[in-house]
Structure formats: C-alpha cells, structure tokens
C-alpha cells in the first residue's frame, strides 16, 4: 500500500532526526563533553522508523544499549533525550539513566537496556498485558545479532509462542556484536530468522537499509500479529556506521568496508533515491527536513548545555514509590 505524502515526509523527518542526533553526538563525545558509554544507531534508521511508524502509544517497544533510534522513532522528545544524555534533571530520566537507559513509558517506550538480551522477556510481558486488554496492540523487542545468542532471547521467544503473546522479535542484524562478526558468533543452519522460526513462529526477512522494505514487511507482519496469530519475528539486514561504542578504532572492518556501506547502504540516501525516482517527494522538501532535523538537534544541544544539573540530594529519590 502507498504511503501518503504526509506519511513519507514524517518518516524521512524521523530518520533524518535520528541521523542528525547521532552525528551531533559523535562530534560532541569526541570532545569529552558528554560522559558515559554511548552507542550510536546511525545506519539503522530505516529499521526503527519503518517499524515504529506503524505503532501508536499503546503499542510497546523494548530497546537495547543502542537505543536512541528506537526512542526517537517511538516519539521520545528530542530535547528530553539530549538532556538525559547530558545528565540534566530535565532529562527524560532526570539524569539518572543516561544514554543506555532512556525510557518513556507513557509513550510506550519501555526502556533502552544495558544488558544484552534483557529486553526480550520484558517485551513478552508488555505483549501479554496488551493481549489482556484485548485491543489488538502489540509489543516489540528490538535485538541485535549479538543479543540473539543470549539465553533470555530464546526463552522469550519460546514463552511468547507458548502464551500466544502478540510479541514481535525484531532482529537488527548489523553483522557485528561489539568487535565480533555474526558469521562467527551466530551458530545457525541459515540465519537468525530461521532460529526464530524453529520456535514455531512465522518469520519475515527484509533489507533493513530500505525503509520501504521494512515498512511493507512490518505492515504484513503486524496484520498477522494483531489478528491474534501469536508472536512473529523478522530479521533486518542492516549496517552500523560507527564503532561499537564511541572511541572504537574498528580494526575489524575490512578494507574500504565503511566507505562502501556509507555509499551503498545508507538508508537515508536509499530513501531519497526511491522517492525521487518515483516522483513522490522533491529534493528540496527533503533538504528542508534535513535542515529542520539539524536545527532541532542543535536546539536540543543548546538546551541540554543550559539545563539544570542534579545535586547530591537527588541520589536517593526514585528508588521506591513508597519508602
């Protein structure tokens, strides 16, 4: 099915925002201005946006250590996120969580997660909650090719099948877990999707660098899951433009690999090409969105720099609801 002009613009705008957000962080982190461990999502924007454009607030997602893209795609506030990464009390998590723990439960974003594989079981719970409420809502667990080897991920898939939970396992295969290739670490007869399939789920596979492939795949998949057919899984072939963490020298990359994926596998460029070729959007309109995204991000950085800082008294609040 065709996306409307408005939908196309919104999708691109979101992807552009993620890109701008991450590239800005890349620069800022190099200066030492921002502390903590930060993992950039650049290169995978089409997955987060292609998935989340189908969701509303009641649909839940659970994310990973590489969570900025998922957060932004699910509608988390750019300034709230930037302030969180800066550690301000005005951050989405009051500066207590930081990059690896950004969450906005009211938006259906149940948290980035510093523990690889920990999100999948949580997504099953969110899915079962939605099933109880009976409105056809789903929950989505984003996992990497590395996370697909963690026991919790398998347990969650089996649990979802057994409980017929409307849970969707989105595997973003960017071919690396930290410094290790998926060819080495993912034992499989075929691919990640085939491992999920062996649990009795229906699975899909698509090019994660092509927004339209992601979007169409998810449309089909979501129709299946929302209809009460139980869980499903999908594997997206995608690319990670930066290192595992900021500062990673990436010696494990092949010669010219980064240049090649930047050139051939950039989901924003591919989107532009598609909509231009099909005469759906003009370059000018897209450029405008890029500019707007950059402006938003720049404003967020300025706001984060000026935002109030926590004090020692804040350490002991928010541990419990009732003490």
């Amino acid at each position: 099915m065709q996306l409307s002009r408005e939908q196309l613009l919104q999708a691109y705008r979101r992807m552009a925002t993620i890109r701008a957000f991450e590239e800005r962080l890349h620069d800022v982190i190099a200066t030492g201005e921002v502390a903590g461990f930060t993992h950039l999502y650049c290169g995978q924007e089409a997955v987060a946006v292609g998935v989340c454009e189908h969701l509303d607030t009641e649909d839940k997602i659970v994310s990973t250590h590489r969570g900025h893209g998922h957060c932004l795609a699910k509608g988390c506030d750019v300034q709230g996120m930037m302030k969180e990464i800066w550690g301000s009390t005005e951050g989405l998590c009051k500066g207590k969580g930081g990059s690896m723990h950004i969450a906005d439960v009211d938006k259906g974003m149940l948290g980035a997660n510093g523990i690889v594989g920990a999100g999948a079981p949580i997504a099953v719970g969110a899915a079962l909650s939605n099933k109880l409420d009976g409105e056809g809502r789903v929950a989505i667990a984003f996992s990497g090719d590395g996370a697909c080897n963690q026991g919790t991920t398998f347990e969650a898939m089996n649990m979802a099948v057994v409980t017929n939970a409307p849970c969707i396992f989105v595997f973003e295969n960017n071919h690396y877990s930290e410094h290790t290739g998926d060819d080495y670490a993912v034992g499989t007869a075929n691919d990640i999707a085939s491992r999920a399939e062996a649990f009795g789920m229906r699975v899909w596979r698509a090019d994660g660098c092509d927004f339209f492939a992601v979007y169409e795949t998810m449309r089909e998949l979501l129709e299946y899951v929302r209809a009460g057919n139980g869980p499903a899984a999908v594997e997206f072939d995608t690319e990670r433009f930066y290192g595992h963490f900021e500062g990673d020298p990436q010696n494990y990359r092949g010669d010219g690999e980064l240049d090649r994926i930047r050139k051939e596998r950039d989901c924003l460029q591919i989107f532009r090409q598609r909509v231009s070729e099909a005469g759906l959007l003009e370059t000018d309109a897209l450029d405008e969105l890029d500019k707007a995204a950059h402006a938003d991000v720049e404003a967020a950085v300025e706001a984060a720099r000026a935002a109030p800082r926590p004090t020692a008294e804040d350490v002991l609040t928010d541990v419990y609801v009732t003490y």
Partner: protein
Amino acid sequence: MAEMMYRDAVRETIREEMARDESVVVLGEDVVGGMGTAGGPEAIGGIWSTSTGLFEQFGASRVIDTPISESAIVGTAGGLALSGKRPVAELMFADFIGVSLDQLWNQIGKFRYMFGGKTRCPAVIRMAYGGGYNAAAQHSQCVHQILTGMPGLKVVMPSTPEDVRGLLRTAIRGDDPVMFLEHKALYGVSGEVPEGDYTIPFGHARQVTAGEDVTVVATGMMVGVAEAAAERMAEDGIGVDLLDLRTTSPMDEEAILDSVEVTGRLVIVDEAPPRCNLATDIAALVARKAFSSLRAPVEMVTAPHSPVPFALELEQAYLPSDDQVEAAVRKTLDYR
C-alpha cells in the same frame, strides 16, 4: 479469627486480590499444571498448592503457566508491571534466582530509578526458600541476604499465616517490586488469621515475646526456632525480647535499636551462611547506632560457610537450632 494454613493463606490472598483487581495476574511453572496433557489443566495448581483453583476461576489469560524459563518469567512479570498490570510470579524455589537474577536485580529492581521515577513496577515475585527437606545444595537456600542488599527491591519474609495475608496484600497492592519469600517448611503450619481485609505495612517488626534481658532478632523459619528457645528460657526467668522483622527491606531499624537500648544484648538468628548476611547487617546497625547501649559482644547464630548438605545429620547440624540460640543467649548474658 479463623485457623488457616500458611500455604492456604498465600493462595486465598492471591485469589481475593485477583477478584478485587483484575490487573492482578499469576504466572509461573506449573501454577496451573497439566497444560498440554490428556489429564487436562489444573492437575496441580502449583507444586506448593499455592495456586490451586485459580485457573478455573480466572482463566488462562490471568493464570499463565510457563515453560521452565525463570529469566523469562521474571522479565515477563516486569513487562506486565511496566504496562500497568500487577503480576504475581512464582519462582518455585528461591534457588532459581540464580538463573533469573539479572531480571530481578538489574531490571525490575531498577526500572523506576533508571527511568527517573517516572514509572512503577508493581511485580511480586514469590519463591519458596530454606532448608529442612534434605533437598541439598540447590533446593534449600536462603536468598534474603542477597536480595536485601539490592536497592529497588523490597524483601518480605512472613513467618505466620496471619502475616502472610497482611503482607501479601500490601505487596500486591503496593507499587514497588517485592520479593516474597515463603519458607517451604512453614507451608504446612497452621495459625490464627484475623477476619477482614487487613494489611500489614512493610518495615514494622512484630514482637513475638517480650523481655528485658536480651534482644533476639529473627525472620521466617528462624522465628519459630528462636521462640522455642525463648519459651524454654522464660522458665528460667530469662526475658527475651524476640523480634520478627517480617520485612528485611525496608527493615524496622527503630524496633531493633529501641530494644537493644533496653537489653544491651543482642543475638541475631539467620538461616543464611555467615558472610555478608542479614545477621551481619543487623550487627553492624547496632555497632554503629546503639554502641553505647551494648553491654556484651553481639552474638550471631547462622548456618556455617558451606553449601547446604544433603544427609539428615548434616542438614540438621547445618541449620541454626533452638539449642544454639539458647547457648548464644546464655553466652551474652554471662558476659560481664
């Protein structure tokens, strides 16, 4: 007042809470039993019989039988709780926190904090702990010493059916993650239970016996052990102020300190091995905050620094006994 067994107190309280609030959901291995069998569901209702009949009454969407996947059980509870439900999950044996600790410690215990206080995670995780069944090193352990140290978790250790009901209501209705530790040797114990919808707040110790000679602090199964010793010593005119903590996080520090202020002597009974356990926690509290009241060295009666052994004689020697409690009390009283 009605007479009720500890295990029945668990189950009936869950049943009432499920009836009262449809967001309460039960999950765990064999909490239904008989799923996918010719004999059909509801064959067991939990190996401790703490969920018998709930499936029949509330159906498969609210009483969820799970595969053997404890991490996924706790994680699923976490996801339900973040989404506004009130899951009551069963881990069967407390020893299985080993295969699910991340979800307890790093996930449900920290969501609220990591998310800046903007969410609630009202998950209750029930588990049977403790020794006495010759179940050996992997089915007999205490875990409160591990869980109490984890910020974000609350830890409850009821010792009577009455407390089960009051504390479990508080746990299910509360908005924080609660580790509800049921001693497996108490399941078959009966006790008087008040009528009505009472709750017991966390962080309030119960005075089991009153006395001014020595303070004894215990939890769970150890309350009965200490009480037996206290009753025997009462005949000799020794007055034991025996406190059942009921919850170890939060802990009723005031009750302990107030008591030691009067008695000046402290014996702590803990079924866990001796290192970094609740006994050391309480000893440290008193050494820090009631030092000037203390008139004798603190005494600890704990399990030894070994795994729980299998054989009858070994497990008997392993578990703290009333004799050991009595000896510790007499030792502290003899100190001048």
